[in-house]
């Protein structure tokens, strides 16, 4: 099902503020279709905020974000944050099916079953959310990416909490997605993907600017 995406991203002088702290400023970059951007930086450098801005959840303090994509359809992104959006009282299959139909997948039952196989939760379909380990919760969250093809993947430490074959599964998912021309922007520590663009948040943290009069 290789449906190819035509999506590119252009950031122009992006800046983000949390409370009064400017996390990063003056960030400009461009991503062509099929590229992978790996975010590096210390904790609190703004990696998660950067992903939330691209996901349209957080409002940037300054700068422009241009998604150059063919379809004007608003739903072209997947956001996988630290939190896995798992409901403790619902079973794995129910949650996968909910996300399938919510994200507009045609046959939610079938695609949910397929996705659970891909992420390796097929034999835990009837386990309620509270019965899952951190790794299994992360795998359930990954089913969203598998079921609904979306051009842009925004992943916050996707490999965290996953065991070895879980990580290889995610690597393959990312490789396939890039082959289809999709964009992957992920906060990852030290994973070697070939021809990945590295973005070190440290370059954009503000130098100790003098006392400014402006009110953040």
């Amino acid at each position, binding site marked *: 099902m290789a449906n190819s995406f035509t999506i590119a991203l252009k950031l122009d002088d992006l800046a983000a503020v949390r409370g009064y702290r400017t996390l990063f400023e003056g960030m400009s970059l461009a991503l062509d279709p099929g590229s992978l951007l790996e975010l590096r930086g210390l904790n609190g450098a703004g990696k998660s905020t950067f992903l939330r801005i691209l996901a*349209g959840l957080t409002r940037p303090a300054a700068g422009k974000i241009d998604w150059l994509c063919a379809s004007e359809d608003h739903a072209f992104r997947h956001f996988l944050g630290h*939190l896995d*959006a798992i409901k403790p009282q*619902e079973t794995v299959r129910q949650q996968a099916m*909910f996300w399938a139909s*919510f*994200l507009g*997948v045609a046959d939610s039952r079938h695609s949910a079953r397929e996705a659970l196989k891909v992420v390796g939760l097929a034999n835990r379909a009837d386990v309620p959310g509270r019965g899952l380990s951190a790794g299994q919760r992360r795998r359930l969250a990954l089913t969203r990416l598998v079921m609904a093809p979306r051009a842009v993947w925004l992943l916050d430490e996707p490999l965290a909490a996953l065991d070895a074959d879980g990580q290889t599964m995610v690597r393959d998912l990312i490789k396939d997605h890039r082959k289809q021309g999709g964009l992957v922007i992920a906060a990852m520590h030290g994973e070697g993907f070939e021809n990945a663009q590295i973005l070190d948040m440290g370059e954009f943290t503000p130098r100790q600017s003098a006392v400014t009069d402006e009110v953040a």
Partner: protein
Amino acid sequence: MANPVVTLFFRELRLAWSGGGGAALPVGFYAGAATLTPLALGPAPDLLRAAGPGILFITLALASLLPMERLFQADLEDGTLDALGASGANYTGMALAKTSAHWLASGLPLSLIAPVLWVMLQGPGAAVGVVLACALSGSLAFFFIGAIGAALAAGVRRGGLLIALTALPLYAPATIFGASALYAVSEGRDFGQALNLCMACAMAAVALGPFAAGAALKTALD
């Protein structure tokens, strides 16, 4: 392909019911508070008939406030709101789906036992239909106005009190019209105008509430 908002509505309904008696808690509170009244005021029928309608509506308002704190906060804390927001669904639709599901799960049962409490508080039995109508429209107004407070206080740890403080003044119109409709019917007067106004409050809340709650959710996610 089902509309996302409808899908979310049915999921919320299932979650609200399967939350282990979650829906029954407000009903328990409502019945408990209403039965405390005779213990406080004494069993004299005419006294209870005089105070009954007012008590019914005040406790209905407070019972409607109970489920508000977990309405949006649960989804904010477990990341569901992030995923819903990033998937491009509109916030107003989300607020509408979640609030109406929670109303069906808790608000409707509240309205259904209102007539029972009405009879317990010596209200005339014939008026049970009107009481149900008042309770339905009243709880609708209380839920959809309370949802605005719930969305505003979603990011706050113990937001319950904040929701009560911000929502209670806005409960004034629905309380006035609902309670006076109940008084009218208990005294055999014409209750039409008051009931219509109470229903108008409910419809306004259902129409405008999710818009404000959606904007507040977007702010909470920022």
